[in-house]
């Protein structure tokens, strides 16, 4: 026989499970944090909730990364072809941009990742 206490316990359990699923399967794949790494050893972590521009030293010089409206991108880097800059804004958790000549990577992370890896 189901009693009021049982209902409360089951409702709570279902609520928490539902919240977990919502977090994992819902639109929670938007990135929250940008991690910038350089082969020179420096690592910076930025919250995407606050607009900022940072510079990190790569093997050729400074790469500049802009955080704006929950997105991040390379805006300047001492490379020739500007592949990293052309990649534009990143916003999804798991997204990566890299300036290979300067040895700098920009990686976004969030509460959950929609994809294990990205093809382009």
């Amino acid at each position, binding site marked *: 026989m189901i*009693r009021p*206490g*049982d209902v409360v*316990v*089951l409702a*709570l*359990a279902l609520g*928490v*499970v539902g919240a*977990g*699923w919502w977090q*994992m399967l819902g639109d929670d794949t938007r990135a929250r944090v940008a991690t910038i*790494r350089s*082969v020179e050893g420096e690592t910076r972590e930025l919250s995407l909730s606050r607009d900022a521009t940072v510079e990190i030293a790569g093997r050729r010089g400074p790469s500049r990364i802009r955080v704006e409206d929950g997105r991040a991108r390379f805006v300047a880097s001492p*490379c*020739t*072809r500007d*592949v990293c800059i*052309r990649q*534009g*804004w*990143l*916003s*999804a958790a*798991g997204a*990566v941009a*890299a300036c*290979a*000549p300067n*040895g700098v*990577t920009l990686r976004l992370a969030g509460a*959950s*990742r*929609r*994809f*294990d*890896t*990205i*093809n*382009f």
Partner: protein
Amino acid sequence: MTPRFRQRTRPRRRTRLAVILLAGTLWGCGPDSDTRSEQFFAMGTLVEVTIRAADAARTERAADAARTAIEETDRRWSPRGEGELGRVNERLLAGRSAAVSPEMLAELDRARRLSRLSGGRFDPALGRLIRLWGFHSDEADPQRPPPDEAIGDLLETGAGIDRLAWNQETIEPVSGPVALDFGAYAKGLAVDRAVTALREAGIRHAIVNAGGDLRAIGDAGGRAWRVGVMHPRKNGFIAAVEARDGDSVFTSGDYERYFEYEGRRYHHILDPATGRPARGVTSVTVIHDNAAEADAAATALFVAGPGDWRGVARRMGIRDAMLVMEDGTVQLTPTMRERVELLDEAPAEPVATEPSG
């Protein structure tokens, strides 16, 4: 007393059960703590090796082995420098024969076979043409197309796999200086080697991603590895794919290396027939069980363009392909249509590549 005892314990049991179920649900679906990634730069791009294994020491050894395999492949197949292909090219460009290793001969044979199957759309002997356009190096910064006469002269005698002849020991140019460039193949080769190294190290579940081109083995822990395919023109994804054990997912696009001149984009995927960037397509994604062949096929289908890609795919044995055309429409093989979830609103058209289609 007994009923009261039950009344007190049943909710506790249910609470315990609920907690266990909840924990099990979150543990099974949440981020896998046995999955680790290593990133490094090689082949002029960022390489990421993701491994799912319980043994941390084994994972580290395996990642090192994969990295070594990629770096060795990079050295051997770089068209310039002190590696084997660099030394071979130096002699071929001087119009002389060059000694080649059995491994390079085997890959030359395979590349020639793929080139012929593609009707010449994939060609690993365009080194001089690639250099003429300025797409050969990270340092080059091309600003405008080369003169038509220079392209025409090169196509006459200085480009194309059929302008090279080889036996079991040496390779030589048959009609003037020629240079090999495995840019549309070597990345796949490196990914295949890295996967082999991982398997030899006892790894069953992993992804090797080299600059966006990848091969997956095993699974992500109770589900397939999920791959997001970036849109060639927009900020975001065009498709989601579930990679099966051994799948390679390779994309060739006109956004990787290019310059703009007088309002037109000139990209690095050159049509061996015209000596100029291929037109009509912005990206080609191929799934295949061999990374090197997926790499070559993505280039070949890109060059084949909207009119000819179906036949080239059929001849190269490619069943899973997706093309984004210059007008933004998407064309897919029927099997690819079943495998991808399209995330963009562009009209998608399944296109048969089987003879009966």
